[in-house]
């Protein structure tokens, strides 16, 4: 590997080292391991959204729906079907991905703000189902009476139920696989085609690329990883409620991606880390934390439209 290539790898290496050692350094600076797990889970959701938003150039404002479906899929499987964490995750991913695949054809022809508007409106269907179907979903109070269970592999048992570090590493392992797949996809011809569509959709269409089909695939892939994040989110809290599906949650994912930098691979993770820590801090300090979050949105849009990594890259270049 020659020198410039190595330079390019340094940010990734730093990110992985920080993530791997998180349970050791985070408590030392006043955090707790569950907060670290939350950052990784929401970071995965934001990176999955960014697959569509930053790399395909399609503005989805409805990813909370698939995040929530993943969460409910996992929770309801463990609560009603089989007490198995692994199966819960699988069902969560399948439910979210299938829903996205079905809704996809209805929306892929729309662009820009209209795509955003329709995706966010569709998300509300699932919100109202979760909210109204009391005896199954627990309604507004959320679905309780279940917990994540230890993982059994013939030769060993990993106690993710009581050991937060073990759960963190499970989350991190799934995060690593997902991020690896997304990075691989983006480097493949398929990913390059998505970027071509982002840069100039008309030209891509004239080149004979089936644009709608590519956007549909990107949408389904993105929603699939978001549902994995949702399933992990439910497992992290041992709880799920309709707010995981609500449209404001979609806005949270978008702000994470923008805050960290939509045009950089690791940006959304950094955005998620800043956002989660900030919200955790604000909600412990003031009852009106919602106002501050709103103000934060406004300030990010006005002063940090390129995100943290975008700013740094600009500084380095100039």
């Amino acid at each position, binding site marked *: 590997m020659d020198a410039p290539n190595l330079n390019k790898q340094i940010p990734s290496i730093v990110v992985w080292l920080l993530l791997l050692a998180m349970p050791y350094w985070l408590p030392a600076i006043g955090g707790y391991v569950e907060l670290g797990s939350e950052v990784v889970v929401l970071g995965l959701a934001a990176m999955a959204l960014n697959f569509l938003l930053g790399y395909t150039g399609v503005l989805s404002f409805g990813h909370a729906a698939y995040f929530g479906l993943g969460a409910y899929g996992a929770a309801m499987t463990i609560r009603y079907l089989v007490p198995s964490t692994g199966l819960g995750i699988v069902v969560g991913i399948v439910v979210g991905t299938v829903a996205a695949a079905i809704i996809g054809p209805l929306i892929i022809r729309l662009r820009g703000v209209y795509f955003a*508007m329709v995706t966010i409106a*569709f998300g509300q*269907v699932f919100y*109202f189902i979760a909210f*109204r*179907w009391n005896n199954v979903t627990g309604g507004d109070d959320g679905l309780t009476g279940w917990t994540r269970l230890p993982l059994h592999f013939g030769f060993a048992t990993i106690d993710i139920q009581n050991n937060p570090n073990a759960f963190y590493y499970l989350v991190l392992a799934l995060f690593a696989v997902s991020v690896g797949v997304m990075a691989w996809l983006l480097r493949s011809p398929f990913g390059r085609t998505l970027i071509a569509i982002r840069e100039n959709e008309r030209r891509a269409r004239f080149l004979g690329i089936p644009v709608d089909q590519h956007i549909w695939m990107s949408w389904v892939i993105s929603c699939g990883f978001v549902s994995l994040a949702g399933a992990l989110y439910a497992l992290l809290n041992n709880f799920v409620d309709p707010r995981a599906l609500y449209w404001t949650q979609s806005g949270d994912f978008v702000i994470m991606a923008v805050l960290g930098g939509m045009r950089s691979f690791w940006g959304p993770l950094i955005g998620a880390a800043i956002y989660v820590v900030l919200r955790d801090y604000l909600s412990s300090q003031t009852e009106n934390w919602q106002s501050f979050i709103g103000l934060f949105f*406004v300030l990010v*849009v006005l002063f940090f439209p390129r995100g943290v990594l975008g700013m740094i890259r600009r500084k380095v270049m100039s």
Partner: protein
Amino acid sequence: MTQLVLFNVFNGLIVGAFYALMALGLSLILNLSGVINFAHGGFLAIGGYLAFTMIPYVGFWGALVLAPILTAVIGVIVERVLIRRLYGRDPLYSLLLTFGLAFMIEDGTRFIWGAQSLPFQVPGWLVTPLSSEYFFLTGYRLFMVLVVAVAVIGLFLILGRTRLGIRIRAGTLDLETVSVLGVNVRVLRNMNFGLGIYLAGLAGVLAVGQLGLQPTIGASLIMPSFVAIIVGGLGSLPGTLLGGLLIGVASGITTVFFPSASEAVIYVMMAVVLLVRPRGLLGEEGRF
């Protein structure tokens, strides 16, 4: 049974009128400036709360006139200070900005007026039922329909007959040409935003008389307004009106037969419309 259905259809029509009033304002702003105003529900709440605060001083009728105007003034200022900076940028940014504004307004109203639902007094003679058989036909409900009708007719007159309205419609089709012809587009967009917010404020005053006054009232009304726009057809104001009324009635009828699906049904309608006629009921072909 007939009475129950009639009651719910009528109720749905009223709710639909709210959706339409809100969606018309959203549509105006969306068509001319390409901004989805997530804070629209927030402005609706501001209209309602301002009316609540004013009533002891100027009475119900005074509040009905003044509160929407004051809301529109706030809207004009917000556009001038914040939203104007984002025209011409990726629509993502105006979305996020108004999203943040919606949070701030909802929390702000909670901070100023409290989280509890507040009583909102409408004149006594408007509340009494007009007929003992059709108990739901209170004067206030008819009055709301009347006000919405007047507002909608007024809006279409403004758009059709006044210089401002003609410029707004022209700008919706081709803003650049309008600008080249010597119209100050900044002022035009500003006025247009104010007009949209006025409708939200008016919807707010009417809505709180029916639904009660609470900080989350805007958040619960904004999503159906999106659906109204999509069902009616993007870019078409008559479509938006029709969409609002349709989803209101559909939701009302569903309340009779399957109450727990009354909210979800409008999204199913949206899915059907997108499947069968992606441009919406009255939308122009090929525009989006």
